[in-house]
């Protein structure tokens, strides 16, 4: 297992385009949207071999979305965070990572269900939990006038 300084040095050489910084716990790599799939592939095939996608989820920072991945290597046990931002709120689209880590297929379906973010090249992009005509509940501007009670604080 490498220290955060060593990892930063390693990734600065490996990914010249990416923005690499030390977060609160782990090294965080931020890439441009069009480099998303390419960077993920590089990370999966590099010497440290990040072959295990622990978690992929989205965060709604109005007006843009952040997609965040937690990756780990089953050989070296290094743990890193990979991020990107989607600016287009009306039609958010990003490349699917399904071909690199098959587990992404279902976690991406959950993101599509909750945020309405579409994934290119996804084999089976359907809603996972909710009905087709339900809104996207984890968006910050989601309003359910029937069931939600507004908190005033």
């Amino acid at each position, binding site marked *: 297992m490498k220290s955060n300084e060593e990892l930063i040095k390693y990734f600065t050489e490996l990914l010249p385009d990416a923005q690499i910084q030390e*977060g*609160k*716990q*782990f090294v965080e790599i931020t890439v441009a949207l069009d480099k998303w799939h390419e960077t993920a592939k590089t990370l999966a095939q590099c010497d440290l071999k990040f*072959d*295990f*996608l*622990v*978690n992929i*989820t989205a*965060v*709604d920072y109005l007006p843009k979305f952040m997609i*965040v991945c*937690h990756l780990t290597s*089953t050989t070296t*046990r290094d*743990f890193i*965070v990979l991020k990107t931002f989607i600016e287009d709120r009306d039609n958010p689209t990003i490349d699917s990572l399904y071909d690199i*880590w*098959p*587990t992404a*297929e*279902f*976690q991406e379906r*959950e993101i599509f269900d*909750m945020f309405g973010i579409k994934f290119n090249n996804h084999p089976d992009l359907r809603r*996972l*939990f*909710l009905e087709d005509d339900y809104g996207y*509940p*984890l968006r910050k501007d989601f309003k359910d006038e029937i069931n939600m009670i507004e*908190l005033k604080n």
Partner: protein
Amino acid sequence: MDTKLKNYIVKENGDIILNMGPQHPSTHGVLRLEVVLKGETVKQVVPHIGYIHRGIEKMCEYDTYKQIIHLTDRMDYLSAHMNNEAVCLLVENALGIEVPERVKYIRVVLDELTRIASHQLWWSAYGMDLGALTAFFYGMRDRERILDIFEESFGSRLLHSFNTPGGLMHDVHPNFQKHTMEFVKYFRKKLPEYHQLLTDNVIFRNRTQGIGVMSKETAIAYGVTGPSGRGSGYSCDVRKIAPYGVYDQLEFEEIIYDEGDSFARYMVRMKEIEQSLNIIEQAVDKITDGPYTAKVKPIIKLPEGEYYQRVETARGELGVYVVSDGKKFPYRMHFRSPNFNNLFVLNTIAKGHLIADLVAISGSLDLVIPDIDR
């Protein structure tokens, strides 16, 4: 007969589409498996989930961290204590709260008791899935003893919400250590019965050995963790690879089997029970006198930023991801639930087996549906 009245569809090429669930007894919850069959052979399994989706992640955005503890119980109700601990550890690490030694050891004992209780319930239900009804009564009889220990200390048997950021809700019962040691002694005597009853049974072995083989590569690619991952030779015990609490000061083995079939997953859980008993024996003696909680402000506000905490529950790796904007509610909270990832490997490993074996395979993955739906 009108096709709409049938509970299956026959396609033109002879394939049968059959629904298992959402009320099928072998799914242990409201999970619907759409199974495509060629005769009796499974061609494809499509899981349909969301029947008990409660929107826990959305609810978390309107709850304080202390309230969120009570929601995490309701995800994987059989590892309620570990789910609580995940959120507590995240808050404690973020604020730099030093938890008293007493609390750390009590938490470990409770973790392992919960793990044993969970594996006992799974063992009972797995026997029942495969037609061995007697196993159910043996497992439930011994699980009751653990639940009695819980009831004595927390007042509740299943969803105890006993952890709180900084320590415990209140102190454990004075008899806690004594009764825990009595249970360990009792259960060590009873465990050989489990092996006589089910492990060495010829019918049981024939129905699990070589059934639902999952390779190490498949386990890693689909994110399978916990005993299901370790049954495929993939070392994924968070207690070993990223220790939390006092797990790095305790001696225990990570159980790994290389076969990858349903029987290997079964054996991992059975051996894990023994390891858990070892851990409890070590930790119970180290519970010292002292306060049961550290001093924590009544309203917890995490500094701005992102946090991630990994914890090993009875079913695999639980991840809690929090984005905080410095207010008393989290800005976004996400749970990486182990069962969610364990479920979707089913299509890959059940392909080509008979439909009766599908019950054996999905049972060996030990799925808890509320954890999948959240």
